[in-house]
């Protein structure tokens, strides 16, 4: 069970990193995620089934997610509609597109296909038990992604993105078109989400159009949980805590699934738990802010 929590926490953590980029860094509530997650899964599953090189499949999944993210940015930038609506439009359209990617069906099993995960496990042979090999693989993948992201947000471009969500006027004042930055950030975020979907499909052994339903809300819960675990402003810690939050979220969901029946909870109640989790996180943050403000006010006097 603990391996399951860690593996899923890591795989979904990639998605949470994408959500972190849009919601936290860009301050853009992007709901495309519900569509780009299954898009990544669908692209991965259908290209793997067609016998393509798994690494190429993964790259394609990223590219597909990135393209979808840019579509959201395009709708938002050119039609000046709020980000929320732009994301919903992309998400809705992707549902149909995902079915097409899956070859006109809603579900594509990967049981008899060699995935990146099974390849790695077989490659290691008897050196590691299968669950341990899986965990090692996911850990390595997430570590590489996290470090790449840390590097990116240290570059001049990354810093500029970091300022955009906080102060758009400052970015304009530097002679930079904020729209261009939004393309980049939404592409990056949804590319990551699609990669997460690609691994989720390989892990579960199938791709399904409904894989993404409500995933944005769970991603948000992961990001918020992480914020409770660690307080920091350094990008390295910020990305780490997103992944920790994702693992914590999985642990809570596991607990809900396996021990929930003691208090009459069924798996159908997990969405309710997720929602309550987010509301609780919001409430606690609000209370802390109030306390902080009160303290500051006192200090001034």
């Amino acid at each position, binding site marked *: 069970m603990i391996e399951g929590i860690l593996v899923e926490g890591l795989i979904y953590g990639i998605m949470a990193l994408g959500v972190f980029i849009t919601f936290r860094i860009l301050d853009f509530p992007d709901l495309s995620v519900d569509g780009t997650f299954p898009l990544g899964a669908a692209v991965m599953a259908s290209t793997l089934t067609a016998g393509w090189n798994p690494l190429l499949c993964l790259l394609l999944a990223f590219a597909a997610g990135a393209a979808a993210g840019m579509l959201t940015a395009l709708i938002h930038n050119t039609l000046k509609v709020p980000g929320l609506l732009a994301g919903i439009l992309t998400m809705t359209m992707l549902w149909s597109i995902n079915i097409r990617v899956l070859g006109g069906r809603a579900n594509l099993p990967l049981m008899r296909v060699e995935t990146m995960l099974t390849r790695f496990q077989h490659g290691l042979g008897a050196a590691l038990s299968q669950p341990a090999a899986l965990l090692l693989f996911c850990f390595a993948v997430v570590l590489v992604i996290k470090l790449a992201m840390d590097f*990116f947000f*240290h*570059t*001049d*471009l990354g*810093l*500029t993105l*970091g*300022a955009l969500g*906080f*102060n758009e*006027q*400052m*970015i*304009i*004042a*530097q*002679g*930079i*078109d*904020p729209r*261009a930055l939004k393309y980049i950030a939404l592409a990056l975020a949804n590319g990551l989400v699609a990669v997460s979907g690609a691994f989720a499909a390989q892990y579960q052994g199938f791709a399904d159009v409904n894989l993404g339903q409500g995933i944005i809300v769970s991603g948000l819960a992961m990001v918020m949980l992480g914020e409770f675990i660690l307080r920091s*402003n350094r990008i390295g810690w910020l990305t780490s805590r997103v992944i920790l939050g994702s693992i914590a979220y999985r642990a809570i969901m596991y607990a809900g699934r396996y021990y929930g029946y003691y208090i009459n909870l069924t798996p159908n109640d997990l969405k309710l738990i997720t929602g309550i989790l987010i509301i609780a996180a919001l409430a606690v943050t609000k209370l802390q802010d109030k306390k902080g403000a009160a303290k500051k006010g006192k200090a001034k006097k």
Partner: protein
Amino acid sequence: MIELKDIDMTFGIGTPDENHVLNGLSLKVNRGDFITIIGSNGAGKSTLFNVISGKYSPTSGRVIFQEGDVTSQPEYRRARYIGRIFQDPLLGTAGNMSLEDNMVITQKKGFKGLKISLNHQLREKFRKELVQLDMNLENRLSDNVGTLSGGQRQALTLLMTVLSQPEILLLDEHTAALDPKNAAKVLELTCRFIEKYSLTAMMVTHNMQQAIDYGNRLLMLDNGQVIFDVSGEEKKNLTVDLLVKKFHEIRKSDFLSDEALLS
């Protein structure tokens, strides 16, 4: 250097709230000018800056920059040669980031690439520049800008803006939100930087004495028009009383309430 030709700006055209804010305003700003601008609330001072900076495009009229028509150039493009500082000290910097990261973003105008500029050498350079502010900020490079006071933050914004070497500096009551001591300090820095980097500048202020004491040229704005434009000797000989008198000569309206408005 910058020329405004017959600028009209009307908000909410065709609605009951239609508001004609700039009325055929024409103005020529020469290189090296340091212009102070006064005018009552709602006279159109900020709107004038918004038109120059490209935040709003005028209803009619043209904006010329160094012989080129830039009327339809978007704000972010014009920002490459226009530096602007607002009344709100929060608008110039990103409070969630460190001083050094803020300075990396603003050290050069234009789109940024995938390189990491911040190194020992650049930090040294930032430190040297920050010393000029005399606020001990050179020792706080890795602190979040959000932890600075309003005065420190505005001084930092000023420094970052002049270091990016704009052709023209627009200051919109940039000391009005600060306490008197910090306001004086930021104003002093402003003058020093304008001189040091030989900048062309326009400064909006509600303080008539300030408008008289600083700069080489003074504009009075009323009802979206430049009603008074003095420079040189004539400006040096101005006093607040003279200015108020001048205002009423031109406007010929109720003395008391207008004096209250102007100051």
